[in-house]
């Protein structure tokens, strides 16, 4: 019945790649020339045609430099910044660089070169060194820490791709460069120290001889370096490519529609699967009636999906479900919609709703909780205070809602597993594939695609596990599983719903004597101590901080900004409230309270505030209905190691009928010792301003009878261009430590900023996000 009306070039090439990769198709096609690869839009790993210099670098005779990228491009620019880190040291011609995904399969079979294993230098304060990875230096698997397998860390998370990979990516480029030089020196029989390399050309100055990388790459590939441990990396003062604004290498294919996302993968003989899982987490299928849909067009079969093994989903409990397999996805989805399914739902989970969860969080705030910091005598501080200020805040469950719905194509045979996927954790997916199919990880091949958004390990949900399960039940047939948008809201993890109660005792001049912070969220929520742990960022002689836990059924995970985004809303809003109670300017109040602490990097925080205030024209008059608010954003300062610090001023207008517009954002952001690609940093800041604008104004997922209520973009709204700030000014200032990263926790102050602007303009203080649920009219 379904007849293909034509096979396009991309599909043909995907078929070719699949045939080449899987050896099950019964035909063979010659490998594509490297130059053809970028045009067809697929960027997954292929065995090289030229010998590789090291696991990151292949140089073709025509000087095309292929750089393997072990992180996943999800719009954050890693495709370009990782390539820049390698190229900086390789000294190759940047215009001939072609990134390609690293092979997670080889990562299962090969160990990392010895010279990548030790972080060089002296931590975050050493400009010549590698900095400190976030996740520890060594760990045996890809699930925790940085493993010793070939590509080390293949995860893309925690905004840490630069921080955790830079030292060994720079080293990979340097090692290859040194071997290219050695190969040329051997060829010419001259001392290697007389050679220099630049733009893929090796020059012997005394004789004037030159050669290209392409011409000697085959020799370099078999020329070992005698002493790779002695190779060092360039400090920022010597960078020539890193630190410059480079357009992203994936962009040209994204304006033509050529990029092959996972959803675009099409293989010969492939069938599509649509999935429905129990909308109440922890629920399972009681019965389903495949006979009712068996004869619908295109329908092939149904596969029951068990509740995914929590060991494969980091302990989270998702739901069981059913997949329908059909010739096309629309047929599969249409049939599935018509198939009767009965669910078994754990009654305690079905009993949850937003109101009783909020009450449980409030109750936990009243209990003692786990005290994390207790400095001085907070109760004595309160007793001595001239004024007490107390406020309770809340933030809702929030999903990532990336634009590409969860999907993966999987082919399982008795020998191997092939997976075409956009994935922020390929090492973990490889492990899952092996566990589900019984096929060793060394026989699992991931064909990585760019992701249509990620925002936190693309959901932490069971997209791969479900697709593998369906394909395992259909061995020999490639299965492309695709979620509906509604299913994507079930198959994701959420940032935990949270509440906070902050209480301060102020002296006669309005300065805090005592500060108490209570944070409530479910016990498996991520980052409970963010923004408040270690020490208070704003001075209070007596400081207590505690976590208060509850037990809810919604699976929670690492959504962009993690808990820091919620916690900075609580903290910065409360500081605004204190400044108002003290009758002081919120910028100068913050400045003074930071100056009174002895927290590491406090001078950088003050510089950020000063710069943002100055950029914004702080204190100059504004039209009626318009206000400015300032906020501090910091991550990790309390450690005294790496940190990321910025400050923003938000200029907000509100019409008398309550329409909010973020008019202008002035951003002061530190560079640390150096930013790899400042253009990507700008784009990430711009994007995060809108991200947290959405968190502030619009987005919430509520729970009714245990289910997520808002599950598509009609009810879970995404702001459009008409709400975007027309003016964003970003300035960088230099600081003397390595950054943690900035891809997920900048612009959190949009939330407190809009809240304080609402207060200034309307006189109303709202403490429950999102603000759009409140009456913002005035006048």
């Amino acid at each position, binding site marked *: 019945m379904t007849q293909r009306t034509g096979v396009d070039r991309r599909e043909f090439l995907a078929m070719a790649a699949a045939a080449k990769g899987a050896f099950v198709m019964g035909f063979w096609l010659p490998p594509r020339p490297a130059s053809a690869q970028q045009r067809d839009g697929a960027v997954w790993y292929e065995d090289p045609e030229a010998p590789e210099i090291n696991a990151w670098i292949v140089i073709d005779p025509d000087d095309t430099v292929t750089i393997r990228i072990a992180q996943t491009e999800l719009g954050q620019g890693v495709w370009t910044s990782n390539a820049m880190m390698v190229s900086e040291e390789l000294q190759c011609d940047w215009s001939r660089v072609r990134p390609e995904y690293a092979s997670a399969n080889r990562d299962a079979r090969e160990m990392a070169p010895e010279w990548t294993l030790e972080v060089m230098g002296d931590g975050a304060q050493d400009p010549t060194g590698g900095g400190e990875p976030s996740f520890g230096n060594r760990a045996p698997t890809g699930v925790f820490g940085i493993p010793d397998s070939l590509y080390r860390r293949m995860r893309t998370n925690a905004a840490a791709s630069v921080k955790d990979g830079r030292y060994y990516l720079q080293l990979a480029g340097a090692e290859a460069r040194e071997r290219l030089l050695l190969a040329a020196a051997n060829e010419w029989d001259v001392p290697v120290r007389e050679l220099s390399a630049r733009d893929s050309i090796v020059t012997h100055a005394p004789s004037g001889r030159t050669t290209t990388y392409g011409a000697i790459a085959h020799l370099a590939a078999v020329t070992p370096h005698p002493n790779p441990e002695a190779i060092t990396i360039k400090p920022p003062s010597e960078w020539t490519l890193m630190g410059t604004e480079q357009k992203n290498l994936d962009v040209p294919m994204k304006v033509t529609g050529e990029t092959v996302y996972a959803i675009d993968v099409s293989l010969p003989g492939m069938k599509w699967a649509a999935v429905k899982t129990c909308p109440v987490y922890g629920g399972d299928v009681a019965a389903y009636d495949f006979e009712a849909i068996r004869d619908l067009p295109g329908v092939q079969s149904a596969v029951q999906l068990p509740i995914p093994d929590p060991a494969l989903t980091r302990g989270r409990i998702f739901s069981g479900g059913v997949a329908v397999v059909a010739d096309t996805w629309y047929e599969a989805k249409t049939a599935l919609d018509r198939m009767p399914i009965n669910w078994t739902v754990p009654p305690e989970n079905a009993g949850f709703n937003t109101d009783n969860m909020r009450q449980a969080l409030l109750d936990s705030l009243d209990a003692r909780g786990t005290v994390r910091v207790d400095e001085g005598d907070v109760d004595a501080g309160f007793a001595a205070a001239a004024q007490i200020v107390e406020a309770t805040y809340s933030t809702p469950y929030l999903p990532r809602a990336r634009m590409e719905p969860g999907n993966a194509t999987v082919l399982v045979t008795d020998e191997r597993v092939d997976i075409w996927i956009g994935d922020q954790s390929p090492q973990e997916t490889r492990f899952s594939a092996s566990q589900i199919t019984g096929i060793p990880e060394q026989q699992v091949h991931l064909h990585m695609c760019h992701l249509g958004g990620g925002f936190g390990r693309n959901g932490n949900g069971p997209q791969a596990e479900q697709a593998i399960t369906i394909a395992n039940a259909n061995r020999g047939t490639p299965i492309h599983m695709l979620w509906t948008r509604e299913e994507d809201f079930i198959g994701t993890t959420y940032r935990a719903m949270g509440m906070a109660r902050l209480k301060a005792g102020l002296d006669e001049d309005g300065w805090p004597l005592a500060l108490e912070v209570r944070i409530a969220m479910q016990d498996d929520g991520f980052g409970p101590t963010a923004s408040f742990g270690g020490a208070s960022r704003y001075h209070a002689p007596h400081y207590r901080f505690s976590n208060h836990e509850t037990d809810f059924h919604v699976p929670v995970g690492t959504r962009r900004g993690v808990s820091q985004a919620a916690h900075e809303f609580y903290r910065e809003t409360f500081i605004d409230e204190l400044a108002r109670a003290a009758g002081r300017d919120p910028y100068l109040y913050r400045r003074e309270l930071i100056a009174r602490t002895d927290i590491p990097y406090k001078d950088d925080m003050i510089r950020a505030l000063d710069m943002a205030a100055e950029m914004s024209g702080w204190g100059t008059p504004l039209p009626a209905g318009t206000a400015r608010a300032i906020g501090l954003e910091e991550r990790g300062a309390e450690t005294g190691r790496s940190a990321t610090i910025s400050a923003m001023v938000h200029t907000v207008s509100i019409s008398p009928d309550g329409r909010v517009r973020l008019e202008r954002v002035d951003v002061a952001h530190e560079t640390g010792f150096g930013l790899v690609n400042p253009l990507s940093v700008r784009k990430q800041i711009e994007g995060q301003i809108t991200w947290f604008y959405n968190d502030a104004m619009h987005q919430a997922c509520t729970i009714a009878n245990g289910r997520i209520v808002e599950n*598509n973009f009609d009810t879970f709204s*995404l702001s459009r261009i008409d709400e975007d700030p027309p003016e964003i000014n970003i300035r960088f200032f230099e600081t003397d430590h390595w950054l943690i990263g900035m891809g997920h926790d900048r612009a959190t102050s949009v939330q407190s900023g809009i809240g304080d602007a609402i207060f200034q303009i309307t006189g109303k203080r709202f403490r429950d996000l999102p603000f759009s649920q409140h009456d913002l009219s005035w006048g």
Partner: protein
Amino acid sequence: MAFDLEVNGVRHSVDADPQTPLLWIIRDRIGLSGTKFSCGIGSCGACTVHIDGQAVRSCSVAAEAAAGRAITTIEGVSSDGSHPVQLAFKELDAPQCGYCQSGMIMTALALLNAIPEPTDADIDAWVTNACRCSTYYRVRQAIHLAADLMRAER
């Protein structure tokens, strides 16, 4: 049931349920995957194509309704990214993940065809596509740049 669709100037005979959303015919039957699925309810615009020059959300149009009309997808804008709108999006480095960008470009193109020198208010009114990466700041600048490039071409 077979029906004919003209996509990017090429006529395709399609044998499918004519009520199937145009999006899925374009992607799965005709094999053009630049047009994206995201919400399936006409809300996000990732699936935007042109029918007779008008931007429409192809997830919410029955394929049959497009029969006999000229359908243009992102692949039909140019084969090499050389259209002024594409050049402008590249110059501003607008895409992040890129998933919404085919639809964004098709909407921008429809706007520029209707209003060659759009104001910010025109952009606000026309560009109702969602971008989760929030590339709006650069998309707005790219549309203005594209207008300049197209004026220079005229």
